[in-house]
């Protein structure tokens, strides 16, 4: 039995997902590749967004992929860390902003 849920070598097999459903797999990868092409945002900016999102959703494959992608694009570690703090701030803020709900409830129930 596999000892861990995640195996780094599985990332290389991502494309095989299409083998069990060619139509949807192909559509997904076509969409995926289109998303990362230069548009109003540069490929570099999209790579940093992807890195930040990867950490938010805590996907080890994505972190691996977009750290490497960033290095290839000449993105510095300082830029990567700054992007992560944006993700952390939003994620932390998302918890904290629910405090308003808590405060509303407390205020409603307490005398």
């Amino acid at each position, binding site marked *: 039995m596999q000892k861990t849920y995640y195996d780094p070598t599985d990332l*290389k097999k991502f494309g095989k997902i299409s083998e069990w459903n060619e139509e949807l797999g192909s559509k997904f990868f076509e969409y995926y590749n289109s998303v990362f092409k230069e548009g109003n945002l540069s490929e570099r900016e999209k790579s940093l967004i992807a890195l930040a999102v990867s950490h938010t959703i805590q996907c080890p494959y994505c972190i691996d992929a977009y750290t490497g992608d960033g290095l290839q694009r000449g993105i510095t570690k300082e830029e990567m860390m700054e992007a992560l703090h944006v993700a952390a701030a939003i994620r932390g803020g998302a918890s904290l902003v629910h405090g308003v709900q808590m405060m509303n409830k407390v205020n409603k129930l307490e005398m």
Partner: protein
Amino acid sequence: MIKSLHKRNSELANSNKQVEFLSNGIFKGGELATFNNKIAETNQFPLRPKKLEILQINLGYMCNQVCEHCHVDAGPDRKEIMTKETMLQCLDVIKSTQAHTLDLTGGAPEMNPNFRWFVDEASKAGIKDFIVRSNLTILRANKKFYDLPEFFKNHNIHVISSMPHWTKGKTDKQRGSGVFDKSIKALEELNKIGYGMPNSNLKLDLVYNPSGAFLPGNQVALEKDFKKALHDDFGIQFHNLFAITNLPISRFLDYLIASENYEDYMYSLVEAYNPEAVKNVMCTNTISVSWDGFLYDCDFNQMLELPVSSKVKHISEYKEDQLQNRNIITSQHCYGCTAGAGSSCQGNII
């Protein structure tokens, strides 16, 4: 400053050990296809020369820098320097070759005591594109080199310089402390006399190679980022950026092994293998001459001491027609030139 593999008496200072290492492990058991088997899949083995375009001459392995990734294992301790006698033999060839480009490299070619004399003489041959690969810091290393930009200009030299990143941190980490500041100063000096300026005939190109175990990204995008950052931060301009893949030899191989990145890196190279790039690899249009006059298919084969497969082995016996009728020596390190958009001393090849 780190020391060269030779100075460290590293096992990898022996090129045979490098070739042996690259032939074993993941390539021995068939886990990854050998390069020769890979190119055979598209009937490209053995590689054969096309029209000779570039004569690349290594003036010596001595360098004022000791870069972590250097495939030459160059450094201040390397004493291999081309003699005037060998230079004279090279000049005979330069006068008669059909190659339109002469490419002087090292080490730091400027450190060869006969560098200026050689450039003077070679430029008389009327070579169309006369390249000197300068590490930039040599131009600021000592007062005796300060006038080199003017010297280059007077000989219409095409300057190609290494610049691994537009930030100080990444550059100094790969090339040594203080390299970034000196490189910027040297680029400013070159710009001042017209090198790298828009519409200028004084060509100034930069070479980017990754500072770690990863492949270079898109050359066009990197050039755009380099140009913006160097211009915004320092007012520096240049013409083209060449993105070059680090080949797994010499000090970069040593780094890959020590950092336990070797296998992953080789997988990356093999996965990025592009059969289209094979058609334009630089060994098909280049002859590389070592500091002691021996002939190689490319600079990398020179460092691995894999000589040309020809009866003509030395510049003193150079016969272009005969050399053109040879098989090119290829091995696993060649995956570095065929990954993605391909890689050569002139950057991408497709």
